[in-house]
C-alpha cells in the first residue's frame, strides 16, 4: 500500500476521533465548571470531599479507567457503549485538570474586585457571574486549547476498547499489510497535523494575554 493510501485509510477514522473529542469535551466541561467553582467557594470538610473526588479522577490512569469502566460497570448492571465509556473516562480525567485550572484562575483575581462588587450592592452570585467568571474564562482560553490537544492525544486510547478511530484504522492496515514504518509514521504525522495548528493558536493567544 502506498503512503498516500495509508494516510487515506487512517483519515477514514477521523470522524470517530472527532466524535470522541466532542463527547469528551462536553463531559469535561460539565465536570470542570461546577466542581472548580465548588472547590473555590467551599471551606472545611465540604471542600475536602470535593477535592478528594477531583483527586480520584486526576490521580487515576486513563487507560486503566477505560478498561475498568468498560469491563466492570456491566457487572453492576450498567451497560454503557464504548463512546459513553470513553467520554466518561477521558472527560472526567481532563475535566479534573480543568477544574484545578479554573479554581486557580478564580483565586488569582484580586480580592479587591470582589469587595468592590459587594460594596456596590451586588449579590455574591452576581459578582461571580459578572466579575470573576468573565476574567477567569479569559485566562482559561489557552488552557482550554491545551486541554483540547490533550483530549485528541488521549482519544487514541479508545482504539483499545474497539472504537474505529484513526489509531484503530492504523492497526487494521498493520494487520493486512505489514508496513510498520510507513503506517505508524503516517499516523504520528496525522496527529501532528491536527494538533500543531491548535498549539500555534494557543501560543499566540497566550502571548497576547501576557502583553495585555
Amino acid at each position, binding site marked *: 500500500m502506498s503512503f498516500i493510501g495509508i494516510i487515506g485509510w487512517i483519515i477514514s477514522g477521523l470522524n470517530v476521533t472527532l466524535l470522541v473529542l466532542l463527547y469528551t469535551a462536553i463531559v469535561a466541561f460539565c465536570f470542570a465548571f461546577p466542581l472548580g467553582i465548588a472547590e473555590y467557594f467551599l471551606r472545611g470538610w465540604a471542600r475536602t470531599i470535593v477535592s478528594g473526588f477531583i*483527586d*480520584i479522577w486526576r*490521580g*487515576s*490512569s*486513563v*487507560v*486503566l*479507567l477505560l*478498561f*475498568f469502566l468498560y*469491563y*466492570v460497570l*456491566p*457487572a453492576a448492571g450498567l451497560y454503557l457503549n464504548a463512546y459513553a465509556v470513553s467520554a466518561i473516562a477521558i472527560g472526567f480525567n481532563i475535566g479534573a485538570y480543568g477544574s484545578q485550572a479554573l479554581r486557580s484562575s478564580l483565586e488569582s483575581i484580586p480580592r479587591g474586585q470582589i469587595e468592590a462588587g459587594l460594596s456596590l450592592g451586588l449579590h455574591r452570585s452576581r459578582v461571580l457571574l459578572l466579575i470573576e467568571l468573565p476574567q477567569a474564562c479569559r485566562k482559561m482560553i489557552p488552557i482550554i486549547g491545551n486541554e483540547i*490537544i490533550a483530549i*485528541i*492525544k*488521549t*482519544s*487514541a*486510547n479508545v*482504539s*483499545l476498547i474497539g472504537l474505529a478511530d484513526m*489509531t484503530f484504522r*492504523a*492497526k487494521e492496515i*498493520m494487520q493486512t499489510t505489514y508496513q*510498520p*514504518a510507513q503506517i*505508524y*509514521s503516517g*499516523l*504520528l504525522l496525522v*496527529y*501532528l497535523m491536527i*494538533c*500543531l495548528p491548535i*498549539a500555534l493558536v494557543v501560543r499566540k493567544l497566550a502571548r497576547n494575554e501576557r502583553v495585555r
Partner: protein
Amino acid sequence: MGFDVDFFLELLPKILAGSLMTVWAALLGSVGAVAFGLALAIGRRSGGVGRVGTICFSEAVRLSPFLVQLYFLYFVLPTWGIVISATAVGVLALSLHYGAFLGEVFDAGLSAVPHGQIEVGNALGMKRWQIMWLVMLPQTLRFVAAPSANHLIGLLKSTPYLATIGVHEMLGSAFDVASDTFRYVEPLTAAGLLFLVFSAIVGSLVRVVETRLRPF
C-alpha cells in the same frame, strides 16, 4: 456476575507481583526521562542546528499520542534491526515522551538563573561544563522540582500503556488473570485500587519535595 471477595483476595498477590514491574518501569523511565530532558534542554541552549533539532523533536513528541509513539517504537525498531524486549521498548518510550516534557521544564528553569552567574563563572575561569554543573544546575533544581514532579506522576500514570505491548505490569497481570478465569471485575478492580494507592503515595512524596525545595 457479582463481586467475589474470596477470588479478589486470592488474585491480589498476582497483581502485587505485577506492580513490581510497574514500579521498575516507572523508576527506569524516570531516570531516562530526566537524563534525556537534560540533554534536550542543554542542546536547545547550544544554538544553531542543535536548537532547531531539539525544538522540532520535542514539539513532535509533545503533540502526538503516547500510545502511537509506543506502537511506533515497538513495531518499527525491529525493522531497523534493533530488537529489544517489550519492557525495554516501554521504558524507552516513557523516557522519550516525558523527556520531551521535562526538556521544556529544564529549559525554563535554566533561563530563570540570572545571566550574571554565567559571567561570574567565566570571570573566575571556570570551564563551560563546570559552569553548567556547579553553578546552573544546582540553582535550576529549585525551580524545576515541582513541575518535574508533576510530569513524573504523569509518567507513572502512563505505565499501564505498556500492557498493550505485552509487558506484564499491573494491568498486564490483571488481564492475564482475566483471560485465565473469564472474570474481569475482580482483577481490574484490584489493579485500579492499587493504582490509586500508588498515585496517592507518590502524590504525598511530591508534596514533601515541593515544600523542601521551594524557590527562595
